[in-house]
């Protein structure tokens, strides 16, 4: 892009053509006052605060929407400009009820700052008349308050809602002096199309929109701000926790525009679901179960008890009879210490965590095809892709902030969006083409797309010959896989499959985004391999904005995998079966290690049934709600001789435990999380833990030491230093380096700048490998007794088993309980009406839930979110496993649904 040279306040500046004066000035540290500008929305130029003087132009010019020009001489402040700004402010203040004395925004309010700076007289044009007090759209909202008396009608909230979030819930209603921000018909916010991202509150420059729960809990200037990484999904948003130093509680959550990766954007969970931190349900003291009842214990007693029992079981049944579940919620440091404890102290590789249930097939599939099982690109590359192919990811609900980048790519940059999902997810609104594949038929769809790409010769021959191997093996499988054949399997019309293939193959850069709709199948690894095939076939790997991008679910599931909380690899995906690596870790950890790979999550549960596992140590996981076929899982938890649950709440799983150890949550500890784009980011302590709760790694170290394997660290930073010495992909990581902005692995040494996208020039494994994949049916197909296909998934407002989100009043208001989605025609056939209680039955169990009758799912298919302990979807799901990755088939099973005979 052409660079333009000009002058701001006597300083020579160059900026790309098209840059506005305001942005160019910002780039050189000159902050031009403004009340309606935000870099994330189109400039509106309505507040008139940003006026500047341009040499040779009459009058003043609005700087937020005027592009710089060659040789331009700009003056951003002089007496004339200051006088105009003062008048502008006085006019604005004639509409703004000045209530700084009781306003939360006091000290962090742009309007207040400018009024002070320009000494504006708020009464010059008369004080505003107070509007009659009447309910508005936010009156009943648990999250947000809107005070029209303070609203200066800058429009930022409306534009954010429309342009960034694209929820289009807010608008201006009325005209002249009566204008207010409103939803359609002033309907309650939580009943409108609002997604409660809180962007409107964040962007409001005048204290007209506020966090309802924070009102009166502390003025922003009095609160302590701690930058940390969100503890919900894998996006890794940078959040600022605002805490009251007097009470030590989180008052509200904000985020800074410009931060990586979320640019100040948040979702409802990051913004409004931190209540769990200060919840009175938090565990505060160790508990030991005696005679079937939990009794409080001291740390000394509890550690002693755990160490003794584990030692006893190990000497009686051997190290292989003990297994540990690490946690994708905990920090990298916690995970490293946990797997080291299991491997070096206990002496087994029986360590796994819930990544097994979400992306085990990704790790298995992408490692085979490319050599590395992680997102190939960075989050901010998505918006620049020519084509975005989303399959099996409800991005706007499960990874909302990545959803924003997808929408930006489509709406601002002209990306062509392809959406393949059994449900008409919200992103389908933005799609060039939406196709609904029958659950479990992804391989058929992708094979047929490749069939089209090969027969129409729109594949990348150069890429295939230079960068890949085994292409010849792929061809025979695809030869007969015509779109017509796929239509019979997937129910997608053949012409649409052709269209999808062309859109994907013809784009300059195409990015595949997928998640659990791909991975949670008995054919999960096959699905992932198919996507890898598709990407390699068209040369869409190894460059910016083109790749295969699994979106990781938990905040630190990437890190937990990276740090070896997996039964087959040490930290950094170094195989436990490689004797050289075993020796390396034996010398690093000064202990003999087992060279046999351990059991996976579901295998552990099944091994308990067979008396092979006697003790289970669970750190921050809740298998009693998250695992498939819950009746069977819960029987195992009941049966195992010794169960330790280390958690922040007495979860469904903890209730089965013999010992419960209270740990601290993300807001109470230092450490790091690795987000879905492989970025290692800081987690910082913002509040003190409740009661005697301790950080996970400290507890583990104490248990290990008590068992005779001394482990001790001076702090989380020391653990990271040790991680860097044994984990090549983390070799260059340190707390110091990632202090401001995280670093993306691979980062092998202290000078390495991190890696934005993988496989540039060469694949991790050398050449990309094609794997021919035959289509296989799901494990369980509908039949006469179970005529529906049941698929499960997530929703925006909840996270995983709800232990954290369900403590938030904002979330409870909009997502109080579970449901099953059923197509309108199916519901009519069964005489089921919307909101009615129904029974959903599979071969494994039966649950009662509410029917949600919708046109967004195809006939014959059902969908249930799995977050809810009442009516848990996982009572129904199938625990059949993918043979390679051992991931269970959460996404497909055969089910029946019945109207309840009588009211319950």
């Amino acid at each position, binding site marked *: 892009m052409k660079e333009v040279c000009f002058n701001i306040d006597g300083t020579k500046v160059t900026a790309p053509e098209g840059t506005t004066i305001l942005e160019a000035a910002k780039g050189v540290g000159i902050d031009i006052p403004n009340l309606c500008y935000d870099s994330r929305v189109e400039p509106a130029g309505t507040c008139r605060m940003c006026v500047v003087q341009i040499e040779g132009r009459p009058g003043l010019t609005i700087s937020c929407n005027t592009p710089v020009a060659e040789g331009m001489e700009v003056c951003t402040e002089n007496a004339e400009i200051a006088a105009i700004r003062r008048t502008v402010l006085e006019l604005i203040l004639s509409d703004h009820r000045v209530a700084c004395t009781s306003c939360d925004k006091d000290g962090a309010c742009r309007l207040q700052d400018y009024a002070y700076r320009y000494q504006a007289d708020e009464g010059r044009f008369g004080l505003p008349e107070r509007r009659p007090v009447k309910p508005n759209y936010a009156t009943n909202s648990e999250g947000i308050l809107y005070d029209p008396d303070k609203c200066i009608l800058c429009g930022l909230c409306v534009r954010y809602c429309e342009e960034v979030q694209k929820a289009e*819930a807010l608008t201006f209603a009325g005209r002249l002096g009566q204008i207010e921000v409103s939803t359609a018909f002033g309907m309650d916010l939580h009943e409108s199309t609002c997604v409660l991202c809180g962007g409107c509150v964040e962007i409001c420059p005048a204290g007209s929109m506020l966090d309802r729960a924070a009102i009166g809990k502390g003025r922003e200037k009095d609160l302590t701000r701690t930058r940390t990484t969100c503890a919900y999904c894998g996006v890794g948003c940078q959040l600022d926790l605002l805490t009251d130093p007097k009470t030590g509680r989180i008052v509200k959550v904000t985020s800074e525009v410009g931060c990586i990766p979320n640019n100040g954007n948040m979702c409802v969970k990051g913004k409004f679901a931190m209540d769990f931190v200060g919840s009175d349900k938090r565990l505060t003291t160790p508990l030991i179960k005696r005679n079937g009842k939990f009794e409080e214990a001291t740390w000394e007693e509890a550690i002693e008890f755990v160490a003794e029992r584990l030692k006893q079981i190990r000497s009686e049944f051997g190290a292989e009879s003990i297994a540990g579940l690490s946690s994708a919620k905990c920090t990298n440091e916690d995970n490293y210490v946990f797997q080291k404890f299991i491997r070096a102290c206990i002496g087994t590789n029986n360590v796994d965590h819930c990544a097994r249930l979400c992306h085990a097939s990704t790790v298995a599939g992408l490692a085979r095809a490319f050599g590395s099982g992680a997102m190939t690109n960075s989050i901010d590359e998505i918006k620049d892709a020519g084509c975005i192919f989303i399959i099996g990811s409800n991005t706007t609900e499960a990874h909302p902030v990545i959803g924003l980048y997808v929408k930006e790519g489509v709406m601002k940059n002209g990306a062509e969006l392809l959406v393949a999902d059994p449900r008409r997810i919200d992103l389908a609104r933005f799609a060039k083409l939406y196709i609904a594949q029958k659950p479990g038929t992804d391989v058929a769809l992708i094979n047929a797309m490749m069939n089209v790409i090969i027969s129409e010769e729109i594949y990348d021959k150069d890429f295939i010959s230079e960068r890949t191997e085994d292409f010849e093996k792929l061809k025979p499988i695809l030869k007969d896989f015509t779109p017509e054949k796929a239509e019979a399997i997937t129910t997608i019309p053949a012409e649409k499959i052709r269209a999808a293939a062309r859109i994907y193959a013809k784009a300059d850069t195409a990015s595949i985004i997928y998640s659990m709709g791909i991975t949670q199948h008995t054919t999960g690894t096959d699905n992932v391999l198919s996507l890898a095939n598709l990407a390699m076939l068209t040369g869409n790997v190894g460059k910016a904005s083109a790749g295969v991008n699994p979106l990781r679910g938990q905040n630190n599931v990437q890190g937990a995998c990276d740090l070896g909380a997996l039964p087959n690899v040490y930290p950094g995906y170094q195989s436990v079966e490689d004797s050289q690596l075993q020796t390396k870790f034996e010398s690093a950890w000064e202990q003999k290690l087992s060279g046999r790979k351990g059991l996976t999550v579901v295998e552990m549960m099944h091994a308990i049934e067979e008396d092979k596992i006697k003790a289970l140590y669970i750190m921050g996981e809740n298998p009693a709600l998250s695992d498939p076929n819950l009746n069977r899982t819960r029987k195992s938890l009941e049966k195992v001789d010794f169960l330790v649950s280390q958690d922040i709440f007495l979860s469904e799983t903890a209730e089965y435990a013999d010992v419960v150890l209270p740990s601290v949550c993300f807001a109470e500890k230092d450490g790091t999380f690795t987000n879905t784009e492989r970025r290692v980011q800081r987690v910082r302590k913002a509040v003190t833990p409740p009661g005697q709760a301790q950080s996970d790694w400290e507890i583990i170290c104490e248990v290990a030491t008590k068992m005779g394997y001394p482990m001790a660290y001076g702090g989380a930073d020391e653990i990271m230093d040790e991680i860097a010495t044994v984990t090549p992909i983390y070799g260059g990581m340190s707390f110091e380096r990632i202090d401001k902005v995280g670093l993306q692995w691979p980062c092998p040494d202290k000078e390495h700048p991190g890696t934005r996208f993988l496989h540039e020039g060469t694949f991790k494994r050398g050449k990309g490998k094609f794997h021919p994949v035959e289509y296989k049916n799901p494990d369980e197909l509908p039949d006469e007794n179970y005529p529906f296909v049941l698929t499960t998934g997530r929703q925006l407002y909840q996270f995983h088993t709800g232990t954290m989100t369900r403590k938030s009043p904002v979330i409870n208001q909009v997502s109080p309980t579970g449901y099953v989605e059923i197509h309108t025609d199916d519901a009519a056939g069964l005489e089921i009406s919307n909101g009615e209680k129904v029974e959903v039955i599979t071969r494994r169990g039966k649950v009662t839930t509410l029917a949600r009758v919708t046109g967004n799912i195809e006939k014959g298919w059902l969908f249930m979110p799995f977050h809810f302990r009442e009516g848990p979807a996982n009572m129904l799901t199938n625990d059949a496993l993918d043979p390679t990755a051992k991931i269970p088939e959460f996404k497909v099973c055969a089910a029946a649904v019945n109207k309840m005979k009588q009211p319950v």
Partner: protein
Amino acid sequence: MAQENNILEQIVDRYDGEVGMLIPMMQDIQAEYGYLPPDQLHAMAKRLELPLSRLYAVATFYSSFRLAPKGAHDVTLCVGTVCYLKGSGAISEAICREFRVEPGGTTPDRLFTFQAVNCLGACAVAPVMIVDGKYYDGVTTASALEVISGLAKDEATVQNEGER
């Protein structure tokens, strides 16, 4: 409902479903129903794939759009400069107080819709009030209230006679 949907379809078709013709479509809806029924706006937003908030913004921006049914009668009072100076502000307040109505709104019993407008072009005979197209000049608070009360009586008579 089927028939109502049909009306909406006809209106949308009239403009080839052009989103840019939103305002004329809304005018046609209003011509059909006398106001903009919320369910029609919901259906229209869905049909045109527009956010409902945008239709609401348009509906509330233009004072000629109504979101509630009109009253049986129209009462328009001028509060332009001359009428105002001659006391129409007080008259407006009295009407609002007496009949529990706001300018632009309709009385709870739907007797009349009240508009306070900026000039009726009859300043020489200010203050001016129009009731169902009939001009009243030089009105006072008392005379205005009397005229409007007359509407209520007429309405009661009509209902008693069962002509409706």
